[in-house]
C-alpha cells in the first residue's frame, strides 16, 4: 500500500485504529485484543485509574509500546474536565487529552457548551486537545478554530453499537475540517468502522465493540482490517452510484 501516515498532534501513526480499554473482562483479554488491533494509541479513563499501581492497564499499554491518551470520562462540567486533564498531565507526563464532558448519565451524550468551554481553557493551558462531540459540523468547526488538534464526532451513543446514525453530518464535518476527524463511539461491528473511513474520517476510536464481543481478539482483528479497508476504499475513490446496470465488459468501447 502507498505510504499513508496518520499525523495527529504532530505525531505520526501507521495505525488508524484508536482503542479504548473499558469493558474488557480481564487484562489478559484486553492485551490480546490490543495486540490483534495493531493500535498505537489507546485511551484510558483517568478517574478510574491509579497510575502508580503495578500490573495495571497502564503497564499493559507500556509493555506493548502503545501511547496512552488520557480521557476525562465521567466529567459533567468543564471545571471537572480541566482538573482531570491537569491531574492526568502530572501523572502520565503527557499534555494530550481526550476531552469528554457528558450531559447526562442515561445517554452519555457530550455536552457541547461545557466541552467548548473546557477545550478553550485546555488549549490555552498548552494541552493537545481531542474533543468528543456530537455529529455537529458547526461545533466541530468552532472547536478547530479554538485550537483543538482533532475533532471526534460520535457515530451513536457510547456503548450503543448503533453504528453511524448520521453519515451525512460526518461527511460535512470531514469536508470542512482542517484537523483530523476521528469517529468516536457507536461502532458496533466491522462494517461501521469501514464506513467511517469511507466517509473520510482519518481514524476510528472504539472500545465496547471489541471488549464486549464474545471473542475480543477476533473482533479486534476484524476492526483492524475494516479500518484499513475503509481507508483504502476512500483513497481509491468509489465509483458513482447509477440507477441502472452498466456492463463491466462492454461489447463496444
Amino acid at each position, binding site marked *: 500500500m502507498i505510504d499513508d501516515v496518520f499525523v495527529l498532534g504532530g505525531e505520526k501513526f501507521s495505525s488508524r485504529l484508536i482503542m479504548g480499554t473499558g469493558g474488557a*473482562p*480481564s*487484562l*489478559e*483479554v484486553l*492485551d490480546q485484543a490490543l495486540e490483534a488491533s495493531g493500535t498505537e494509541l489507546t485511551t484510558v479513563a483517568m478517574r*478510574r*485509574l*491509579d497510575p*502508580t*499501581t*503495578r*500490573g*495495571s*492497564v497502564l503497564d499493559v499499554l507500556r509493555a506493548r509500546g502503545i501511547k496512552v491518551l488520557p480521557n476525562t470520562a465521567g466529567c459533567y462540567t468543564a471545571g471537572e474536565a480541566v482538573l482531570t486533564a491537569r491531574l492526568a498531565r502530572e501523572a502520565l507526563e503527557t499534555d494530550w487529552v481526550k476531552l469528554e464532558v457528558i450531559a447526562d*448519565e*442515561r445517554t452519555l451524550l457530550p455536552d457541547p457548551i461545557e466541552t467548548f468551554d473546557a477545550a478553550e481553557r485546555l488549549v490555552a493551558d498548552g494541552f493537545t486537545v481531542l474533543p468528543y462531540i456530537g455529529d455537529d459540523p458547526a461545533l466541530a468547526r468552532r472547536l478547530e478554530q479554538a485550537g483543538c488538534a482533532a475533532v471526534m464526532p460520535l457515530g451513536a451513543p457510547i*456503548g450503543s453499537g448503533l453504528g453511524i446514525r448520521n453519515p451525512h453530518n460526518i461527511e460535512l464535518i470531514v469536508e470542512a475540517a482542517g484537523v483530523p476527524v476521528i469517529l468516536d463511539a457507536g461502532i458496533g461491528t466491522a462494517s461501521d468502522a469501514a464506513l467511517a473511513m469511507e466517509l473520510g474520517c482519518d481514524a476510528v476510536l472504539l472500545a465496547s465493540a471489541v471488549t*464486549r*464481543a*464474545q*471473542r*475480543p481478539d477476533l473482533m479486534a482483528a476484524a476492526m483492524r482490517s475494516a479500518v484499513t479497508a475503509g481507508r483504502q476504499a476512500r483513497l481509491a475513490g468509489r465509483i458513482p452510484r447509477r440507477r441502472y446496470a452498466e456492463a463491466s465488459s462492454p461489447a463496444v468501447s
Partner: protein
Amino acid sequence: MPELMTTPDVIVVGGGIVGLSVAWRTARRGLSVAVVDPDPGGGATHASAGMLAPVSEVTYTEEPVLRLGLASLALWPSFRDELEGDSGVDLDYRTDGTLKIAYDADDMAYLDELAAFERTLGLRVERLTGRECRRLEPMLAPSIRGGMLAEDDAWVNPRLVTRALRTALDRAGAAVVADRAVALTARGVRLASDGVVAAPRVVVAAGPWSPELLPGLPVRPVKGQILRLRGPGGFLTRCVRGLVHGSPAYLVPRGDGEITLGATMEELGFDGRVTAGGVYELLRDAHELVPGLTEMELAETTVGFRPGTPDNLPLIGPFDVPGEADVLAATGHHRNGVLLTPITAEAVAAFLTGEAVPEVVKSCDPGRFPE
C-alpha cells in the same frame, strides 16, 4: 501473641478465608500449621458478600474461571458440613439460587444473549418475565423487565466462615500469629516485629499483598466498595443480581435480616477511601431494583481489595524462589475468593502432602505468565 513452642510443618502467610482454610485442611491431614496475619479475616474476606455464584457470574472469555468455580461449588456442601462440625458455627449457607434481573429492555437483551451462551456451556438458567421475578421476590420494583434464575448458585456469610475457621484451627492446636510477615527467608518468614517463624514450607495467601513476599507475582489490588443494610428481614429470599442501564449490582440477604449490597470495581491501587460516588452509585442502582430498601439502616460501608491477576484465574501451586523456603502460592482469587476457597484449600493441602492435585487446578499454575 502466642509463642511457637515448636517449628510447624507449614506456615501460611495470610489469614483471609483462603489462608485460614488452607491451614485448616492441612491441619486436618495431620500436619502442624501456623498462620501469620496482623488482622485475620480483616481483608477482602471481611468486605466480601460471599456469593457462590459461578453460573450467574459467567462472562465471555471466562470459561476457565467458570470450570474452576463449578468444581469448587461442588465441594462447598462437604466443606460446610465438616467446618460446621469442627467449629460448631453455623455459616448461614444458603442454596436458593441467584435471581438475575434486568431493569430495562437493553439490560434484558443482554441477559438473553448471555443466557444463550450459558446454555451452550451446559448451564441451567431459566428465563422469567418481570411478573414471574416478582412472584419469587415481591420487593422487586414493578418496572423490572425480566430475569433469569440460576438455581444452582448458593451463598454464605464470609464473616461466619472466618469465625468458624478460627475456632476449628484453635481446636486443632494451630497457632495464629498476629503479626505481619515482611519477607521470606531460607527457613521461614521474618515478621514486622523482627521475629522469625521457621518452617520448612510456606504458603503465601496474602491476597493483594502477596507480591511483598513474592516479587514478580502478578497480583494487583482491585478496590471494591460494599454496603451493609440492616432491617427487619424478609426483604429478599435469594441473591439478586441486577443490571440497571448496563451497570451491575447485587443484593445478598442474610438470615439475620442484613442485606449486603455491592460492589464497585476500581483500579485505584490501595485506596481505602469510601467515596460519595461509590456509595451513591450502589444505592442508586439498588433503589431502582428494590425501592423499599431505602428504609433500612445503612449500617456499614466497607472497602476491600480483591487480589486481581491478568487472566482473572487464581495462582495456586509451587512458586520457585531460589534460595528460600519451599513456597506455594494460594492467592489471586479476584472476585471469587469465597467460592474458590474449598478447591484452593484442597489443592494446597494435596501439594503439601503429595496427594493428587485436582486436574482443574492446573489452569492456576503461578508460573503460567511469560516474564
